[in-house]
């Protein structure tokens, strides 16, 4: 009964901890490793034109739905222009207006995006397109081609693929030749395909975007074909019929509408530049959480002031040290002074580093112990004696710092970070144990404490673990679950296997 509560509680804690962890890791994209950088692509489109005499109105289609990418931010730079974003048939369009402008004008629109495989296409199901009215001889050509292709295909997708293959044949038949003869640009070609598909009531449209990689000063839009198979949108390479979006393909606009229209201006030139930068993955994750409206991020340690973060990056590792302690005491059976003394010593090791920490600790305790034995002869009462030991410890620490400063050993200065009260208590308890149970026991417990402190230090100082716990503090719930489970561990300790081995001689 009791046991079941324990398992239940541990399971609940672990599941809660892992659930938050997985959400933040997988959905929000918090990095599990330190210093993980995410690529951020900034795509800048500039529209230049000569201003005419009257008012000017510039329309630019801008990204709306971008499968595989999520927007970090966007902005527009245009001196003196009014700026609005509207929704048109092909998605969002940015609109700049000004009553009067002189000379050449350039308007910038900039968007920063980062890859996110969870950013799925969430487009709506389009209506069936109207059957286009097509004149001869194109009509017959299409009819022949379509009925040919239809024989070789099973469904919408395979029909599209087969059609594209036919249209791209190296030695096209006369019908195909007739149809693609006027398609000068890839966009025109896709438009023709769209029209052919419309005769079969297949919703289709062109998508235009960029292949994002590195730095491109003059990026050319790439046109792809998108069809809807009554369930979802599918992407086809118009040149091969292969169903696949290119890697790193960022969709800028859809449909056959012109990308830019400028009213009241001339000599319009549009240019796209792509730049890849790297940003800390945590920053991206926070932005993402913000966009999702998750309040989880408000409780992230990253939202604290930097100074406080530094403090918490230490504090949050103390449970790990305590967990090491539990393992050492209840699974291994190493004896130590005090329950958490080794963890506090391990904290001090963070500053002194391991070797120096151990040396300084042994030095302090050894000096403190010898002075404590001198005090013993004075027969001081308990509290004054403890106080005397504390004062001696403080003086020893000061002495060690001063001497190492003279010697130019900087590490010696960090002795100041040792918890002096803990050391005083350790000295006191060690000397009592020394008297009562002999030096062997006292030294064994002292070394036990040191070993636990060293192991705790190594665990607490592991930088990936520190990052993991700091980014996902909910993992402490998992640690708690493990501690609860270990609290009910009734098996043997490792040292007992040695201790009771005499019983096994029979």
């Amino acid at each position: 009964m009791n046991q079941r509560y324990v398992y239940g509680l541990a399971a609940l804690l672990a599941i809660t901890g892992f659930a938050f962890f997985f959400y933040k890791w997988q959905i929000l994209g918090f990095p599990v490793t330190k210093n993980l950088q995410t690529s951020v692509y900034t795509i800048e489109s500039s529209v230049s034109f000569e201003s005419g005499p009257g008012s000017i109105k510039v329309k630019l289609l801008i990204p709306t739905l971008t499968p595989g990418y999520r927007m970090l931010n966007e902005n527009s730079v245009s001196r003196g222009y009014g700026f609005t974003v509207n929704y048109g048939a092909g998605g969002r369009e940015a609109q700049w207006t000004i009553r009067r402008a002189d000379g050449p004008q350039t308007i910038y629109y900039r968007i920063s995006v980062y890859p996110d495989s969870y950013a799925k296409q969430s487009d709506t199901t389009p209506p069936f397109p109207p059957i286009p009215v097509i004149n001869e001889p194109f009509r017959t050509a299409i009819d022949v081609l379509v009925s040919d292709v239809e024989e070789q295909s099973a469904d919408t997708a395979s029909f599209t693929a087969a059609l594209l293959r036919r249209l791209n044949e190296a030695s096209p038949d006369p019908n195909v030749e007739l149809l693609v003869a006027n398609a000068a640009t890839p966009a025109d070609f896709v438009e023709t395909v769209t029209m052919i598909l419309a005769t079969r009531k297949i919703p289709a449209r062109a998508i235009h975007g960029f292949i994002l990689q590195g730095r491109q000063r003059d990026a050319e839009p790439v046109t792809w074909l998108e069809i809807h198979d009554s369930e979802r949108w599918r992407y086809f390479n118009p040149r091969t019929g292969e169903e696949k979006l290119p890697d790193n393909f960022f969709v800028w606009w859809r449909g056959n509408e012109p990308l830019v229209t400028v009213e009241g201006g001339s000599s319009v030139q549009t240019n796209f530049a792509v730049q890849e930068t790297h940003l800390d993955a945590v920053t991206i994750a926070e932005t993402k959480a913000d966009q999702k409206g998750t309040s989880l991020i408000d409780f992230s340690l990253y939202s604290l002031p930097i100074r406080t973060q530094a403090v918490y990056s230490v504090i949050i590792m103390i449970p790990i040290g305590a967990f090491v302690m539990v393992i050492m005491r209840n699974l291994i059976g190493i004896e130590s002074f005090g329950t958490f003394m080794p963890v506090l010593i391990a904290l001090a090791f963070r500053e002194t580093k391991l070797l120096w920490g151990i040396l300084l600790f042994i030095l302090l305790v050894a000096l403190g112990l010898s002075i404590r034995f001198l005090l013993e002869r004075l027969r001081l009462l308990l509290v004054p004696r403890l106080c005397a030991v504390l004062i001696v410890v403080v003086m020893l620490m000061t002495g060690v710092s001063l001497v190492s400063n003279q010697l130019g050993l900087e590490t010696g200065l960090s002795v100041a970070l040792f918890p002096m009260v803990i050391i005083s208590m350790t000295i006191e308890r060690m000397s009592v144990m020394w008297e009562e149970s002999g030096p062997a026991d006292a030294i064994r417990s002292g070394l036990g404490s040191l070993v636990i402190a060293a192991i705790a230090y190594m665990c607490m100082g592991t930088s990936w673990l520190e990052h993991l716990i700091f980014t996902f503090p909910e993992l402490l719930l998992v640690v708690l679950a493990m501690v609860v489970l270990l609290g009910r561990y009734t098996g043997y300790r490792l040292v007992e296997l040695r201790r009771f081995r005499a019983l096994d001689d029979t």
Partner: protein
Amino acid sequence: MIFTTPKRLNELGVLGINERNSEYIMRLNPRRLYPCVDDKAITKELALEAGMAVPELYSVISHQGEVREFAEVVSELDSFVIKPARGSGGEGILVITARSKRKRDTFRLSSGLLITEAEIAFHISNTVSGQYSLGGTPDKALLEYCVRFDPVFEGVSYQGVPDIRVIVYRGYPMMAMVRLPTQASDGKANLHQGAVGAGVDMSGGETLTGVLGNRIVDEHPDTGALISGLRIPQWDFILQSAARGYEVTGLGYLGVDMVIDRDLGPLILEMNARPGLNIQIANGEGLAKRLARIDAIYDPKATPAERARVARREFAAERQTSIPFDAVEAV
């Protein structure tokens, strides 16, 4: 062999610390009952109320101001013991066995060393401030009768007083051992400090082989005398007293420590809510089987005397309960 396997220990029925703590101590020894055994002054009082034999208490010193009065209390005494009321592991116990004939303020310790009255006062003062108590909390010092131990253990102890530890589970004496002081243990009957523990056959109160540290020994390391085969006097009375410890303290998992005085017979020294597990090594047997057996035959209405009888019947040492040869033939 440095380590044995958990499987092997399990087969032997060895009780581990973790299991003892969580399955027995935490379940059967409610925290509120701990003062009954952690404070020896209270233990003594409870034992006296129940009519059990304990070493006579001369005085309790609970304030620094009273420390000086101890000389007055002991002025008529040549031997006495000073112990912290809340000490653990036998720490802080001073056994004064004699007083110098010429200098009245000098005493002889059980170790043979001399100690002055001032030094004793310092020790008492330390005790009262809590040097030997759990967690360093202020404590009391008890001045009590110094047991003159029964000659039965004379050959197998080095100074100090040998004592008998009985583990009582739910009122039933379960396992016992004799703890024999050695030179290494500084006359203290504490296995951890180097005393020899000898298992005891529950049926007849006869000692089995001993254990020193984690080693099995046949002879006392200092005297060389054979440890096994000593018959503990008044064994039935010892088991009954131990069994009554359950009624007195209410603790379901209890260690009762007794000494045998030459003149007064078995006396209860102290009781322990977290008795150690070395008793298993001393007896060469794990506790698990006996724990299970007591759970099976547990009778809430049984009197201490009945429970002591059950223990003698159930937990006889194996060599005495081995099946006779002809019985094996019959099967």
